[in-house]
């Protein structure tokens, strides 16, 4: 089985801060990490590899700095890493990004594509389904579990608001995975020792199957009109009081607000 895993390098948004004066992101000192849902996807691929044997190729689109994230993927157990890096991809929205990735997938041999549900910098959850459509593949999103059945079909648990849909899919497909369902392994020390002996292949746009006009900014229907920091509301009162006084304060407020 050949599995492609799509991964993205993202700023760790849990430590992102906003410059209160300029209203811009303070990028300095913010670590770049492998997007958590993507890491969950890699974990699923590696579990399938452990159980059934598979060749796991991680692919990413991004600047050359994404190399370190792909080394991490190799140290976790991926077999091959390809980085799509080209100025022609710059300014891509989700449609243009998924299109570029589809051009790469088309020239690779695969049975299954796994992506994260969404990236923590954009939170769109769009690239996976858009990629599936470009490749004319069936998709299953919000994947919480997946296994290969005896008939070679894939059985997948999809999480939704009501519970779980158990789905069966025949042939090639694309899954988008929830990080919370796949507790990703750490890199092993021996994996780390070998990570820089392997090659991270850097591919430009002319190595993949795409029309140039549909890449990057030109291929992106959406544009950012403006961005601005979130307005913060003024903090209320904070009281350090005994539990008895706390109960009084809360009850009074609940009465004022007509909640009780």
């Amino acid at each position, binding site marked *: 089985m050949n599995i492609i895993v799509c991964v993205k390098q993202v700023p760790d948004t849990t430590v992102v801060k906003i410059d209160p004066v300029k209203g811009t992101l303070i990028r300095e000192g913010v670590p770049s990490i492998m997007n958590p849902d993507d890491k969950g996807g890699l974990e699923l691929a590696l579990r399938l590899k452990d159980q059934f044997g598979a060749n796991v190729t991680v692919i990413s689109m991004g600047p050359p700095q994404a190399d370190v994230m792909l080394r991490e993927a190799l140290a976790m157990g991926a077999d091959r890493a390809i980085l799509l890096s080209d100025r022609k991809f710059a300014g891509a929205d989700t*449609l243009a990004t998924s299109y570029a990735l589809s051009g790469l997938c088309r020239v690779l041999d695969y049975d299954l594509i796994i992506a994260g549900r969404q990236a923590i910098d954009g*939170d769109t959850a769009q690239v996976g389904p858009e990629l599936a459509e470009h490749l004319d593949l*069936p998709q299953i999103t919000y994947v919480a579990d997946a296994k290969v059945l005896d008939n070679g079909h894939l059985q997948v648990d999809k999480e939704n608001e009501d519970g779980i849909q158990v789905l069966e899919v025949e042939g090639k497909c694309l899954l988008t995975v929830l990080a919370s369902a796949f507790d990703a392994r750490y890199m092993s020390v021996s994996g780390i020792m070998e990570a820089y002996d392997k090659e991270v292949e850097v591919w430009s746009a002319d190595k993949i199957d795409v029309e140039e006009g549909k890449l990057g900014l030109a291929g992106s229907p959406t544009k950012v009109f403006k*961005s601005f920091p*979130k307005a913060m509301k003024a903090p209320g009162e904070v009281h350090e009081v005994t539990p008895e006084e706390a*109960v009084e304060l809360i009850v009074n407020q*609940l009465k004022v*607000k007509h909640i009780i």
Partner: protein
Amino acid sequence: MDKKDYKNVFVFAEQREGVIQPVALELLGKARDLADALGEKVVAMLLGEGIKDQAQMLIEFGADEVIVVDAPELKDFLSEQYSQAVGQIILDRKPSIVLYGATTIGRDLAPRIASRLKTGLTADCTKLDIEPDKDGEPEFRMTRPAFGGNLMATIICPNNRPQMSTVRPGVMQKMQRQAGREGIVTEFAPKFDASKFKVKLVKTIKADKTVADISEAKILVSGGRGVHDKEGFDKLQALADVLGGQVASSRAMVDNGVMPHECQVGQTGKTVRPNLYMACGISGAIQHLAGMEESDFIIAINKDKFAPIFSVADLGIVGDLHKIVPMLTERIKKELEK
């Protein structure tokens, strides 16, 4: 493509097991504002099996027209079946705007459609406006949180149609229901290509629904790491019971398996805006705040006086929730008995 050919604001009216989801009504409310600003119509797309009699409700919540696709293929949500139907409606009817709920269904379907129609999609919007562009033409502006809720971004889709977005449940206001409001119900029969139906539904496992949807709740008693365990949440449940509310959770207590994912408030959970949000033992990471700071009234109880939750709380109590919550429960019981 001539943009002028595209008209009307379409809403994907999500139903699950035949029940129209609240987010569909919220979207109709917003679509009504947008359509009025554009001088266009609100059209709801209602897909499923045996759901036609629900169309009138959508009209009463603001739709001018409901396109009903009633087909056995659409009984349960499956990406390809729904994509074919919605895709064909859009190609046929050429809407200028299409709105979907940012639910697991909407976030599965909308990008599939966007990629099929090669148009733009903006995810998880919290604000949608029509504003004049530089030429004075009305422009659809979609605002959404980015970078884990640290930043807001306004997105436009200037050259492609339809302009599409998903909207988080609980963000938009639905219209007051107008009983007897009139509109058109149209049936649409898509041409299904069954050769592409590669995914089969084996079974559905319902989650243990001890809790109703927290995004619907008017009162939420929410717990974080400071609640410690299931027993701690029992105390919160007792308080929620006397207040007639529900229990919610921070991500930490979902990740460690104490609470189910449906209870999670925040960036990767649900957005809530209840009348009262009581945050107990929740430190208030920005991802959590993103999901609850629109609540009308926020009370925070936390041992750590430096907890960021206090920056959004209307009333902050530095103290031990394990003492305060049970006392408060007893006290409110007495108040209500009066």
